């Protein structure tokens, strides 16, 4: 046993898979310690806030300021005010107005603004342009005119008599240290369509999905192992019946079965554990078949015959004389079942047949939400890409471990 374990941990493939998997598990355990709370809490109003650090403007305005005179502050300010979309729209306008844009660099903000002042005519109505677009250009012009127009921002508050009274003036050289601002929130992966912290949700979803995979794996392995052992060892009519059932389950695509069962359960009945059990219930056939074939080759071995002659019961022979010989095989099958359980949950949830959406996030549900709110078409990559990455990593690490185990237990595969 100790020797086998040592061998297993000398397989580079197994160790690589194991390290990835343990890293994911550790993230699952450690991250909530630093960022506790309900992963489904809607902290943002509106959908898909970009990843980044959010500083409270309210608090920043009331924070003690320091004066910094940075040489490129004004340029940065103008550059940040013109988004990439604005720049594309400006070039479009220039083209319509027939300006020479052959050597214009869209990243050169000064040149862009200079050309804009030259070409923009508020009365112009280019052919085929919608009113909305014309209004957009008006707003853009106002924004460009505002740039650098004022050096200060004045903050006024209502005093006791309800009259606006200037309370503070913010200069363009005023800076606050983010450490002094009362509320700063870093959202490494932004928010999703419901305004939830994606990273927090992802960590929680990873945990749920691995749990679903484990339950599905255990259910599938227990059913498959029991059927395989009985069919293989007892044989005869029991074998015929079990193999008949197994063949039926094999012939019907398990995913179709899965969809039908989950659909018929209804939204209210579908908790994470129920979905996991259903997945396990439809994926045991492979284990049953392979265990059966292994047991058939074992049941006529001399040590089994000898055990029979020693008067041992069926249960004892199966548990003591057959199970240890196929244990490595069963462990490998179990790992594969966990991996395919996680994938099956993701597939089901993507179709909207996953666990009910109000209780726990799962990896599949996160993908489903991202898809329903068109994250993939509006460029909100943070809502689905990390999820895909985690699913891939889990499945990759489990399969890597499985291959590593296979090489240890199946010497013909050793390279």
């Amino acid at each position: 046993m100790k020797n086998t374990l040592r061998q297993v941990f000398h397989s580079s493939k197994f160790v690589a898979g194991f390290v990835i998997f343990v890293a994911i598990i550790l993230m699952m355990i450690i991250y909530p310690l630093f960022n506790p709370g309900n992963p489904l809490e809607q902290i943002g109003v509106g959908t898909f806030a970009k990843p980044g650090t959010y500083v409270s403007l309210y608090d920043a305005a009331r924070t003690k300021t320091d004066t910094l005179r940075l040489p490129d502050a004004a340029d940065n300010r103008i550059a940040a005010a013109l988004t990439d979309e604005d720049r594309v729209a400006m070039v479009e306008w220039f083209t319509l107005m027939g300006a020479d844009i052959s050597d214009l660099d869209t990243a050169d903000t000064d040149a862009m603004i200079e050309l804009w002042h030259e070409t923009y005519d508020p009365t112009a109505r280019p052919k085929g342009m919608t009113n909305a677009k014309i209004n957009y250009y008006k707003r853009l012009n106002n924004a460009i005119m505002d740039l650098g127009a004022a050096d200060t921002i004045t903050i006024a508050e209502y005093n006791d008599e309800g009259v606006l009274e200037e309370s503070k003036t913010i200069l363009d050289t005023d800076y606050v240290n983010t450490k002094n601002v009362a509320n700063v929130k870093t959202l490494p992966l932004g928010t999703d369509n419901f305004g939830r912290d994606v990273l927090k949700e992802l960590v929680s979803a990873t945990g749920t999905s691995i749990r679903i995979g484990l339950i599905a794996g255990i259910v599938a392995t227990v059913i498959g192992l029991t059927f395989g052992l009985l069919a293989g060892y007892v044989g005869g009519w029991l074998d015929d019946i079990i193999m008949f059932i197994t063949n039926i389950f094999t012939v019907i695509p398990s995913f179709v079965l899965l969809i039908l069962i989950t659909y018929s359960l209804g939204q209210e009945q579908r908790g994470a554990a129920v979905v996991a059990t259903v997945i396990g219930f439809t994926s045991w056939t492979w284990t049953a078949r392979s265990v059966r074939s292994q047991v058939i080759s074992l049941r006529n071995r001399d040590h089994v015959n000898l055990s029979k002659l020693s008067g041992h019961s069926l249960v004892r022979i199966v548990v003591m004389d057959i199970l240890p010989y196929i244990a490595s095989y069963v462990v490998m099958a179990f790992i594969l079942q966990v991996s395919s359980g996680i994938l099956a949950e993701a597939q089901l949830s993507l179709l909207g047949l996953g666990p009910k959406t109000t209780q726990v996030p799962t990896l599949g549900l996160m993908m489903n939400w991202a898809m329903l709110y068109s994250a993939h078409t509006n460029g909100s990559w943070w809502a689905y890409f990390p999820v895909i990455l985690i699913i891939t990593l889990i499945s990759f690490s489990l399969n890597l471990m499985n291959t590593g185990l296979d090489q240890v237990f199946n010497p013909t595969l050793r390279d």
Partner: protein
Amino acid sequence: MSEMEKARAQTDFSDKPLCLSGRGVTKVFGFGDKKTVAVDHVDFDFHEGEFVSIVGESGSGKTTLSKMLLGLSNQTEGEILFQGKPRDIGTGRKKREYWKGIQAIFQDPFSSFNTFQKVDAVLLDCINMRGGKHLSKQEKTDMMTEACNFVNLKFAELTNKYPFELSGGQMQRLMIARIFLLKPKILLADEPTSMVDACSRATILDMLLNLRDETGMTVIFITHDIGLAYYISDTVYIMEHGKFVEFGKADEVILEPKAAYTKRLISDVPKIHEEWDLSTVDLKQDA
């Protein structure tokens, strides 16, 4: 040749009580075109204390017959009688009772052991099976030590060892120790010496003979080596294509063979066998 006879008890077994006998025992595998008759209506009478050899080539049905004798598979036709009464092994309980009376040593010692269990467990099982569950640890150890001594093994060296840590010869001797503890009425030895070296072979055969002499059990020795059968057994059954073509006392069958198959088997024995001087082999010393 006369020296060899000392290995055999010069007893006439025909008047001893019957231990195991068969009437028209048949085993058929498959059906229709794929039908194979492995054992074809064989009759046999094994007496108490008799050392019987069943000799035949590979595929003659020896092992199939032994599986049926052990009750590990059922005969398609015919009847097996145990101690003169029809054998009843319909239920698990009756089977377990039957196996107290008949035990086996298999061909391959390496696959006879569960590699996940320590060797003491095998011997402890035997003590428990003989109703020694209540015995104290010391008594059990004594019994196991005695059994190991019988087969020239040191029990102290075996404890806490796994089967794969032993040599093939040691494993096969341990199997005999197991039989020594169980003391069944019948021992079925299915080519117990074919997987071990020549030196261990003589030791093992000697131990089987000792076991028979000490406990008076019937030994059914299955082999493809007719020379070995002649050397060791009282009675020889020659099996060809699932049938007994000839049987009788070892001397009669081997020295005056009647069936063509027996003659062929005897002529097939390698020449070197004839030049062996078995009188110089002292089995006791080997052990």
